[in-house]
């Protein structure tokens, strides 16, 4: 092949293979030559005008770039939308080059176009992403100046081009410590940081900042893109959540009640300081290590098993690490969110202090009763002393006047009052015995009442008094000192019989009632005897005296009864109406009854 032929051949190859669509048009816009790529993109071209092909028009386009190049001989580049051979529109970058003849005329223009539709789309996507991404995006130069920013940034901070990022975000005059952008400028790597700043309204904002090099390989990039995500709202929610969490945690931590919570499998997840104290475990030893079942009463486990929600026990026991049983008030709840089972929580109120106070109060009342009794004893003794004085005086008087009746009466008075002294001593010793002798066994209250009734039937019959028993069946055995409660009932029934005897009315009736109401065992002794007027009623439990006249009683009976009742955690009440009778009531709440006396 000759040199010229080779050149022509090479030029021809180049023309056909260059990755561009090439067409040559004349001044009438006829396409006079085109390459293979052109034909593949726009289809058959021979005999067609360029506007026929590109725009499907019959007249030249307004502002035709080829026309301008024909006119001024300048090269041009433009971006144009053209129809391809399938009739769909694409974007092309088009170069217009004049072909100038030796005489300076421009008979042809070369038109080279490249499809940039895909680039165009990517560009658009990038622009949307850059502007619409819900965070502040800036491009910084090495002087930390903002050279580009996105729409969201502009909305919050204004244009701000040329300003330093730390001036904008944090109103500072120097870069921040640990600035991630500076790190990226140094090592080209991606860095993140949490920063707080002030917006243009002076409000505190929190950012999550990511910085990234804009150059792919450089170690010290010239530009860094900085993306700051406003996490103020999240942070505020987080802070509120933390506050609420801290608030609840401190409530639980400082609660007087012991609180234990567990997950749905029963594994303990919360064990507050009160619980540590009550059960003698450290929270660390229990949380995620032990099951709640070990701490709560079995009743609560039943409740959970049965799918119920709540369990309230006014009085229950908690067993601590040393297997000691602590009296507690218990409340357990199954935790749910909608239908989802979240676990369970248990609350314990330590009753030891309350129990101790109750005990102390009873003890104080007992001591007060002792004090009153001593005062009352003085009252009784003074009567006896006066009786003795009187006996001597009357005897002396009889002797002086040689009146043997009077002498005899004086002697009798001395005897009476000496007898009364021994009665006082006996009763007082009985009263003063105190708590030491209490012997608690499981007692059938019905049986006990029946025995007291039997004891008095004969006495009552002789006095013409009816004695009746109204005893509820099926009263469960209770922890009581049999002898002591027996003494109480004997005292009350004996008082009631006396009251009937002393009454001006005939047909005395004494009723001993036994029933249980709300877990409280009640003994009632009613009489329709003389009753007691107000002044006596006021004094009944506060002073040691007898209203029975003569030497029949010391008045200690009721006080002994009260002491015993209190020792059983019970109380004694009285309803009395003058000349209509009295009702003495002994009430024993089961939960306050004493524990069984341990056998030696």
């Amino acid at each position: 092949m000759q040199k010229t032929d080779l050149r022509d051949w090479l030029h021809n190859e180049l023309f056909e293979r260059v990755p561009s669509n090439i067409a040559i048009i004349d001044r009438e816009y006829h396409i006079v030559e085109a390459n293979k790529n052109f034909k593949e993109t726009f289809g058959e071209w021979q005999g067609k005008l360029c506007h026929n092909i590109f725009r499907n028009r019959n007249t030249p386009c307004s502002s035709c770039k080829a026309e301008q190049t024909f006119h001024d001989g300048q090269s041009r580049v433009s971006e144009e939308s053209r129809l391809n051979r399938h009739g769909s529109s694409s974007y092309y970058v088009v170069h217009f080059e004049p072909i100038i003849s030796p005489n300076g005329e421009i008979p042809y223009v070369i038109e080279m176009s490249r499809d940039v539709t895909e680039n165009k789309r990517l560009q658009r996507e990038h622009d949307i992403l850059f502007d619409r991404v819900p965070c502040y995006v800036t491009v910084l130069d090495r002087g930390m100046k903002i050279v580009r920013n996105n729409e969201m940034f502009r909305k919050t901070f204004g244009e701000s081009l040329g300003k330093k990022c730390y001036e904008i975000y944090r109103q500072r005059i120097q870069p921040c410590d640990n600035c991630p952008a500076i790190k990226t400028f140094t090592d080209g790597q991606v860095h993140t940081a949490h920063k707080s700043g002030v917006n243009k309204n002076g409000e505190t904002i929190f950012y999550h900042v990511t910085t990234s090099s804009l150059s792919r390989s450089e170690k010290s990039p010239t530009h860094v893109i900085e993306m700051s995500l406003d996490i103020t709202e999240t942070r505020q929610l987080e802070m509120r959540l933390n506050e609420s969490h801290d608030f609840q945690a401190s409530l639980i931590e400082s609660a007087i009640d012991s609180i234990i919570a567990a997950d749905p499998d029963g594994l303990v997840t919360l064990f507050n300081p009160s619980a540590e104290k009550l059960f003698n475990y450290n929270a660390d030893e229990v949380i995620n290590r032990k099951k709640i079942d070990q701490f709560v009463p079995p009743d609560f486990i039943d409740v959970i098993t049965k799918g119920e929600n709540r369990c309230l026990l006014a009085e229950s026991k908690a067993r601590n690490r040393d297997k000691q049983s602590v009296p507690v008030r218990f409340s357990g709840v199954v935790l749910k969110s909608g239908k989802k089972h979240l676990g369970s929580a248990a609350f314990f109120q330590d009753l030891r202090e309350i129990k101790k106070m109750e005990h102390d109060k009873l003890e104080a009342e007992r001591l007060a009763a002792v004090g009153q009794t001593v005062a009352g004893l003085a009252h009784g003794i003074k009567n006896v002393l006066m009786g003795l004085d009187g006996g001597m005086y009357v005897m002396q008087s009889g002797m002086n006047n040689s009146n043997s009746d009077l002498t005899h009466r004086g002697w009798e008075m001395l005897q009476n009052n000496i007898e009364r002294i021994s009665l006082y001593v006996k009763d007082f010793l009985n009263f003063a015995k105190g708590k030491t002798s209490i012997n608690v066994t499981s007692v059938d209250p019905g049986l006990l009442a029946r025995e007291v009734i039997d004891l008095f039937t004969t006495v009552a019959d002789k006095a013409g008094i009816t004695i009746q028993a109204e005893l509820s069946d099926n009263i469960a055995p209770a922890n009581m000192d049999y002898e002591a409660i027996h003494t109480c009932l004997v005292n009350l029934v004996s008082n009631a019989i006396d009251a009937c005897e002393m009454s001006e009315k005939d047909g005395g009736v004494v009723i001993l009632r036994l029933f249980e109401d709300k877990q409280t065992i009640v003994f009632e002794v009613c009489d329709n005897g003389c009753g007691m007027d107000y002044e006596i009623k006021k004094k009944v439990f506060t002073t040691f005296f007898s209203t029975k006249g003569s030497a029949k009683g010391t008045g200690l009976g009721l006080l002994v009864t009260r002491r015993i009742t209190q020792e059983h955690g019970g109380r004694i009440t009285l309803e009395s109406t003058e000349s209509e009778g009295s009702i003495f009531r002994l009430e024993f709440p089961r939960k306050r009854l004493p524990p069984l006396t341990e056998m030696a």
Partner: protein
Amino acid sequence: MNQNNIASPLNHDEKKILVVDDEPDILTYLTVLMENNGYQTFQALNAVEAMQKITEIKPDLITLDIMMPKKSGIAFYRELKLNQQTLDIPVIFISAFSMARDFMGPGFRKLIPDMDIPEPEAFIEKPVDIPRLLEMINKILG
């Protein structure tokens, strides 16, 4: 003992004293003592009996125990002082209560807040100091 009291002048124009106490021994003691001192005495074991006797005998003075069955001395005293017929009869309380102040002055007002009811003439504690009792009776009965 107490010879001087027994032997004291016996002429009190037979003033009548009603002794009210639920203890027969004390009744005997007080009536013997008062009779030895020249007073005419009557006995009552309780308030009901006392009210009957008052109507019958119209006593010049009543000695009254406090703790008695059926009706206490306080209740009885209130009744006495609310009755026009018996209002003016002087009363001496004789009781084993040790605190006179519970029954005289402010203490008495706590027991009987009704201001229409006057305080009793005297309060004497058991066992009785005989010269003091006699002096008190003498003073009241003039």
